[in-house]
């Protein structure tokens, strides 16, 4: 891996992290407002952001506390909502296998939707793990903005007009959609993303939104694997090239062979 390619990929992480930081900041601020309106103190809201660090379950917890759920119920539902993180850890594990265990243990706490999306794209671009790149993706894009914005929302939020007037509520789904596009490098990824979305919505309506997200995330890849490998279609290829994640991009500079359907592509 040459230093210029690594630096280029880290710059891409930094640029994308800026957009994610806006999303995390806006989302964290809204969470702080919601926690404040549910009667959380700044210490309680801040502790939740620091110790749980998982937005969807924190929002749900505010609703549960407000609705008078038992703590046992809140904890069980939190575990269910956050189950999808096991998929992220499993996807990153091959890259991080040779890193010290204490380091991986710390990295695990910072593994969010956003950190995963930025990190997996970065690791695939460079073909290996990059710990500083992970910190940039996890801490710079999400951990710091999320925690600062939570405290801001829960302390001074009452004097600010409804954040949804500024469209802040649409930033999270837009960021997730945009990051998904960055990971689409062929027909299989496209089918996995589309089917994950459809299954997610269907199960959410039939059962529960948290179940929908987990089910969509689990079923989508199966449908993606079911389609023929095929070639990379042109629109996806353009997106891929734009993101610099095509193996023929950064890795071709090292003389690496191009094989879009190699399941171990990009793994160390």
């Amino acid at each position, binding site marked *: 891996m040459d230093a210029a390619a690594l630096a280029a990929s880290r710059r891409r992480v930094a640029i994308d992290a800026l*957009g994610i930081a806006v999303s995390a900041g806006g989302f964290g601020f809204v969470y702080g407002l919601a926690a404040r309106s549910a009667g959380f103190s700044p210490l309680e809201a801040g502790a939740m952001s620091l110790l749980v660090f998982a937005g969807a379950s924190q929002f749900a917890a505010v609703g549960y506390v407000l609705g008078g759920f038992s703590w046992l119920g809140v904890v069980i539902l939190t575990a269910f909502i956050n189950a999808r993180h096991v998929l992220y850890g499993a996807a990153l594990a091959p890259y991080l296998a040779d890193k010290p265990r204490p380091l991986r243990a710390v990295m695990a*706490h910072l593994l969010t939707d956003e950190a995963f999306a930025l990190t997996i794209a970065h690791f695939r671009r460079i073909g290996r793990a990059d710990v500083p790149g992970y910190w940039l993706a996890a801490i710079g894009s999400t951990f710091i903005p999320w925690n600062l914005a939570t405290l801001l929302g829960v302390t001074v939020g009452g004097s600010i007009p409804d954040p949804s007037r500024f469209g802040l509520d649409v930033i999270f*789904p837009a960021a997730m*959609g945009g990051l998904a596009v960055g990971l689409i490098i062929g027909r299989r990824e496209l089918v996995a993303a589309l089917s994950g979305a459809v299954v997610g919505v269907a199960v959410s309506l039939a059962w529960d939104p948290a179940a929908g997200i987990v089910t969509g995330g689990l079923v989508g890849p199966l449908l993606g694997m079911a389609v023929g490998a095929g070639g990379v279609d042109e629109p996806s290829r353009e997106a891929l090239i734009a993101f610099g994640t095509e193996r023929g991009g950064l890795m071709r500079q090292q003389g690496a062979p191009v094989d879009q359907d190699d399941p171990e592509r990009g793994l160390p």
Partner: protein
Amino acid sequence: MSTALIPLAFLMGLVTYPWRAVPLLVPGMHRLPAQVQLYLRLVGPSVLAALAAVDTFVSVDAARHGTFHVGWEWLAVGLCIAIVAIRRNLFLGLIVAAGMIAILRAVGVASLP
């Protein structure tokens, strides 16, 4: 200042951490069969798309019942996705999406959530 919910935050963190940590800490995760690795490669786009779609199209009430919802938000999210695909600029996509919804709400075309 109340600290009564801090133990709850700790418990929530306690049940969240294993989901994140176990796959990273269990030995042998990097020697998975090729088909499993392919599956894991497809998890990212699938989960992120599910998150985006559910957040955009499912409206949740206090009892966590979901109802199908088609507002202007889907157009804003779609615009962001298009900008990312064409211009590779997520930050610009997010600004355009939020700005579009803010304007539509300001002029009364789109309703507040």
